[in-house]
C-alpha cells in the first residue's frame, strides 16, 4: 500500500511523457516552436451544444491566423480538454495546461460555472485570462488581467436588462407594472437580480416575481398566474427548453401584455427559432449579434460562412450568430495583443488589452477596469414578420430588428405586444 | 406445573384489515415443556408465533415471557430475553459460512470473546451434527442441513423457549427422526419447545401437551391422547 502514491505518480509521469511525446511528434520540423493556447471546453454535458460551437469558431480563428503566418512567426496550436460541463474537472485541467503542457496562453471555457473554477489557478500564475460568456465572474475575484468578451457591460447584472427597461420606459403612456419570471438556475437568477434593480430605477411596480424549477413541463399555470396580475411588462429569464415552453404557453393562453421578453436564452438558436416560427412575433429579447445592416462588422460574414460550412457535421447551431462570433473575437483580441506586444509576456499583454480598442468580428471592443466591456452592447431585438417555420427568414435583415442601444438601432418597436 | 410459566399469552388478538387471524388466544408454556401447536392451514399458527417472537405486534391482549410483558418489544429484544425461533422456509445468511451463521446470534445475544464464541459455535454445531460443515458456505447446504442450521442458529440465541416452525416439512422419515432426536436433546438442556408441525406422528410422539387452533381460536388444549379423541379437533381437520 505504501507504493500506492508512488505508483500513481509514476503513472502520471508516464502519461505526461507520452502526451508530450505525441505533441513533439505532431509538431512539424520548424525552427520556432508553436505558440500553444490552452483551455477547457464543455464538449459533453449540459453546455456542450454551445461549447462545441465555440470550439469550431476557435478552430476557424486558428486556421485563419496560421494561414496568415501565425503569431510572431510561430504557428498557433491548441491544447484543450473536455471539462464535461463539470466544474470539478476545471482546476485540474488548467493546472495541467500550465504546469505539464506548458502552454503560452490560456483562455476560458464556456460559461460562468466553468470559468470561475479556473480563476484561482490562472491568477496564481498571473496569466491574461480572456473569458467567454461568464456573468460577473470577476466581481468576487477582482483580477486585473481578466477580460470578458460578452458585451454585457461594466455592470453585467444590471446592464444585461437595461435595454429592455429603457425601451419600456420610453413608451407613451409609460407602462406602470412589471412581472418578473425566471428559471431556478445561475444565469436566470442573476438576470432577475439585475431586472429587479432596473425595474425599480425606472419606477415600475413589480406585481409578480417568481422562479420555476427545471424541468417544468407545462408553463400555462405560470402564464395564467402572471396574467392574473395584468402586468404591462413581462420580463422572462429562461433557458432553452423553458423558453420554448414559455413561448408556447404564452400563445396558448393568449397573454395580454404590452412588452414581453428580455432574457430568454434559446430564442437566439436556430433549432428553436425555426420551430417556434410565428409565435415569436413581437417578443423583445436580448441578443448579441443578428444579421441587421447596422451590425455588419468587418469579417463577421466571412467568418459565419466558414462556420456554417462546418456546423452541420458537428451537429451544432447551423446559423451560429449568438456565441461563435464572440468565441472567434476573444481569440482575436488576444492574438492581436500578442502581435502588437511582440511577445507572450503576460503583463504587457494585459496592459495592451486594457488600454486599447480592438477591432474584431463583433465590432470595436474596449474593456472597463473590471474586464467587462466598457460600454454595454447587449442588444434588444424584436421578432417581426415571422410567417412560418423555416430557418431562411432568420438569415435576412428585418426578422429580428435591433431596438437598443440607439447606436445600432435598425428598426422600430411594434407596440403593444398583445396579439 | 407449580413453577411459574416461561410463556404466558393472554387474550391475544390480531387483525389484518377486516380479517381476524387471532381471536383472543390464551396459552401458557411451562419451563422445559414440549408443546405441540397444530391446526389446519390458515388457522393462525404462524400468526400466533409471530406475535410471540415479535415479527407481528398483537392488536390486543398481552404476551408475557418469564413474567415480563413483551407484547410491544422488537424481535431482537425478545431474542435477547430468551425466545429463539427457526423459520419454516430456511433463511440462512447466504454470504457466510455455517459457523459464521451461528456466530451472529452468539455474538449479539451473548457476551463472550471471539474465542469463546468460536468454541460455543462448534459445540452447537456438534449438537446439531453439522460440525463437519462448519466452514462451508451456507448457500451450498441441502434441505436437511438448512433445517439443522435453522435450529442451530435458534439454539445459539441461548433460548429458554424455542419455537420450531415446521422444521420437518418435506423431509424423509429418517430425516424427521434425526430432527426429532436433536429437538429432544435440546429439550434435555432445559429449553421449552413449541413445535408447529403437520406430521402427526412427529407431533404426537414429541409433545407432552398439544394445543389446537382453528380459525383464530383455541379449540383444544391437552395431552396428545385427549386431543386425538377430541371431537372438535376431528371436525376442524376433517370438516363437517
Amino acid at each position, binding site marked *: 500500500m505504501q507504493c500506492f502514491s508512488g505508483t500513481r505518480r509514476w503513472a502520471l509521469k508516464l502519461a505526461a511523457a507520452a502526451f508530450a511525446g505525441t505533441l513533439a511528434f505532431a509538431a512539424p520540423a520548424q525552427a520556432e516552436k508553436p505558440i500553444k493556447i490552452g483551455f477547457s471546453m464543455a464538449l459533453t454535458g449540459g453546455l456542450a451544444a454551445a461549447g462545441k460551437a465555440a470550439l469550431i469558431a476557435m478552430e476557424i480563428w486558428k486556421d485563419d491566423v496560421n494561414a496568415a503566418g501565425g503569431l510572431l512567426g510561430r504557428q498557433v496550436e491548441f491544447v484543450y480538454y473536455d471539462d464535461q460541463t463539470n466544474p470539478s474537472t476545471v482546476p485540474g485541467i488548467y493546472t495541467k495546461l500550465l504546469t505539464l503542457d506548458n502552454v503560452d496562453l490560456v483562455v476560458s471555457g464556456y460559461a460562468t460555472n466553468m470559468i470561475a473554477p479556473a480563476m484561482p489557478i490562472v491568477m496564481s500564475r498571473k496569466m491574461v485570462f480572456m473569458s467567454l460568456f461568464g456573468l460577473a465572474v470577476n466581481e468576487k475575484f477582482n483580477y486585473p488581467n481578466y477580460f470578458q468578451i460578452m458585451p454585457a457591460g461594466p455592470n453585467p447584472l444590471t446592464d444585461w436588462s437595461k435595454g429592455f427597461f429603457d425601451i419600456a420606459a420610453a413608451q407613451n403612456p409609460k407602462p406602470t407594472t412589471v412581472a418578473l419570471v425566471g428559471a*431556478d438556475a445561475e444565469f436566470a437568477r442573476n438576470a432577475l437580480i439585475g431586472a429587479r434593480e432596473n425595474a425599480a430605477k425606472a419606477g415600475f411596480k413589480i406585481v409578480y416575481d417568481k422562479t420555476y424549477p427545471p424541468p417544468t413541463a407545462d408553463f400555462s399555470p405560470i402564464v395564467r398566474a402572471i396574467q392574473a396580475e395584468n402586468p404591462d411588462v413581462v420580463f422572462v429569464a429562461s433557458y432553452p427548453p423553458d423558453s420554448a415552453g414559455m413561448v408556447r404557453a404564452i400563445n396558448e393562453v393568449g397573454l395580454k401584455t404590452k412588452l414581453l421578453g428580455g432574457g430568454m436564452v434559446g430564442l437566439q438558436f436556430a433549432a428553436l427559432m425555426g420551430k417556434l416560427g410565428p409565435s415569436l412575433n413581437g417578443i423583445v429579447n436580448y441578443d448579441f449579434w443578428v444579421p441587421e445592416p447596422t451590425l455588419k462588422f468587418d469579417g463577421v460574414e466571412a467568418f459565419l460562412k466558414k462556420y456554417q460550412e462546418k456546423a452541420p457535421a458537428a451537429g451544432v447551431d447551423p446559423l451560429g450568430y449568438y456565441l461563435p462570433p464572440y468565441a472567434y473575437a476573444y481569440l482575436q483580441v488576444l492574438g492581436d495583443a500578442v502581435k502588437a506586444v511582440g511577445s507572450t509576456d503576460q503583463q504587457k499583454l494585459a496592459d495592451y488589452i486594457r488600454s486599447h480598442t480592438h477591432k474584431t468580428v463583433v465590432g470595436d471592443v474596449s474593456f472597463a477596469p473590471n474586464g467587462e466591456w466598457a460600454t454595454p452592447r447587449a442588444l434588444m431585438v424584436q421578432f417581426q414578420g415571422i410567417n412560418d417555420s423555416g430557418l431562411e427568414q432568420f438569415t435576412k435583415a428585418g426578422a429580428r430588428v435591433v431596438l437598443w442601444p440607439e447606436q445600432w438601432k435598425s428598426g422600430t418597436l411594434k407596440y403593444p405586444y398583445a396579439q | 406445573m407449580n413453577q411459574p410459566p416461561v410463556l404466558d399469552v393472554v387474550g391475544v388478538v390480531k387483525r389484518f384489515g377486516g380479517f381476524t387471524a387471532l381471536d383472543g388466544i390464551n396459552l401458557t408454556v411451562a419451563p422445559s415443556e414440549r408443546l405441540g401447536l397444530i391446526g389446519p392451514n390458515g388457522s393462525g399458527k404462524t400468526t400466533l408465533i409471530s406475535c410471540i417472537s415479535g415479527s407481528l405486534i398483537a392488536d390486543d391482549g398481552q404476551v408475557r415471557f418469564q413474567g415480563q410483558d413483551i407484547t410491544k418489544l422488537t424481535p431482537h429484544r425478545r431474542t435477547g430475553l430468551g425466545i429463539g425461533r427457526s423459520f419454516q422456509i430456511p433463511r440462512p445468511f447466504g454470504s457466510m459460512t455455517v459457523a459464521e451463521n451461528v456466530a451472529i446470534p452468539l455474538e449479539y445475544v451473548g457476551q463472550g470473546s471471539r474465542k469463546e464464541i468460536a468454541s460455543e459455535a462448534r459445540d452447537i454445531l456438534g449438537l446439531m451434527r453439522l460440525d463437519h460443515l462448519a466452514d462451508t458456505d451456507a448457500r451450498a447446504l441441502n434441505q436437511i442441513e438448512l433445517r439443522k442450521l435453522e435450529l442451530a442458529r435458534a439454539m445459539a440465541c441461548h433460548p429458554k423457549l424455542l419455537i420450531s416452525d415446521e422444521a420437518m416439512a418435506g423431509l424423509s422419515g429418517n430425516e424427521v427422526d434425526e430432527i426429532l432426536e436433536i429437538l429432544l436433546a435440546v429439550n434435555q438442556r432445559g429449553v421449552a419447545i413449541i413445535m408447529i408441525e403437520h406430521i402427526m406422528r412427529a407431533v404426537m410422539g414429541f409433545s407432552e401437551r398439544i394445543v389446537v387452533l382453528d380459525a383464530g381460536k383455541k379449540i383444544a388444549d391437552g395431552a396428545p391422547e385427549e386431543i386425538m379423541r377430541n371431537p372438535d379437533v376431528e371436525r376442524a381437520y376433517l370438516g363437517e
Partner: protein
Amino acid sequence: MRIGWFYPIALLLVLGGAFATKHVDSNFVFYAGYVVLQFIVLATAWNILGGFTGYVNFGTAAFFAVGAYTTIALNKALGLPLLAIMPIAGIIAGLIGLAAGYFTLRLKGVFFSIATLALAVVLETAVANWGYVGGASGSYVIPPAEVPFFDNYIEGLFSLMLLLAVVAVGIARYIALSKIGRGFAAIRDDEVAAECMGVPTLRLKLIATTLSGALMGIAGAPYPFYVTYVEPTSAFSLTYAVNSIAMPLIGGTTTWFGPVIGAVLLGSLQQWATVTISSELNLLIVGVTLVAFVVLAPQGLVGLARKLFGRGGRTP
C-alpha cells in the same frame, strides 16, 4: 487487540502524501489526486450503507452538497476556516442521514433508494431557494492565498483529503472487521432472520446511514474551496451518485478495500481520460464499466481475484 499492519501503513501514507507536496513539481497531480481521493471517501462512505447492509443510496450528491453548502454558509456567516467547518458538516450531514434513515429504513430496500432520490430533489430545491448561500445563482468562495505548512492551498486540500480518505477507509475497515460489520452482513443477507437472531437491525441501519451520510458530508466540505464557485446543479450532480455506486461495485462491495480499489481505478481512469480522450467516449467509461462489471464480475475485482487465486482469506 493487536495493532496490525493497517494503522502504521495508513500513517506512512499520510506522511508520504504530505511529503510529496514538497517534492512534486506539478500541482496537477494534486488536483487530479484530490478528485480521486474524494471519490475514495465517497465510495467508502456509500459502501458502508450500500455494500455492507445492502441499502442502495441514490442520494450521495445530496449529502455531498450538504457538506459543500455548510462550508459556504459557515464561511460566510462566521468566517470559520475549513478545518473547523468539516466536523460541523459531518454532524449536519450525519443528522440528515439519521433522519432520512429513521423515516425510510422501515421500508423495503427499493423504497429507501427512491426516498434518497427524492431527498436529493427536495434538498436541491431548498438550496436553490435559499438566498443566503447564493440560491440558484451560485456562490463564490475565494480560497485563501496562504495556507500554513503548504506552498499553496491545493497542496493543503490534497493533504486534507488524503487524511480524510485514510480515516474513512480506517472506519470502514474497523466496521467490517467488528461485531457491527457482521451484523451489517446479516442484515444484507436476510434482515428478518437477522432481527430474530438478536441483531438490532434498525439501530444498526441508523448507524450506517448516519456514518455514511456524515462521511459524505465531510467529503463535500472542502469542495467550495476546490472549485471556488458552487451552484446547486453542479453540487447536486448525478455524477457523484453514479461514481459512488459504480466504484464499490467495480471493486467489490462486501469488503472495506473493494471501494478503494474501485475508486482508485475508475477515478484515475476518469482523470486520465479527461486530459487524453476528451470526448463523449469519456462518459461511456462509467456506464460501460458499471454494466460490464455487474453482469460479468458480480463480486467485483475482489471477487474475481478470489476466484482466480482460490478462496483466500475471507478478511485480511
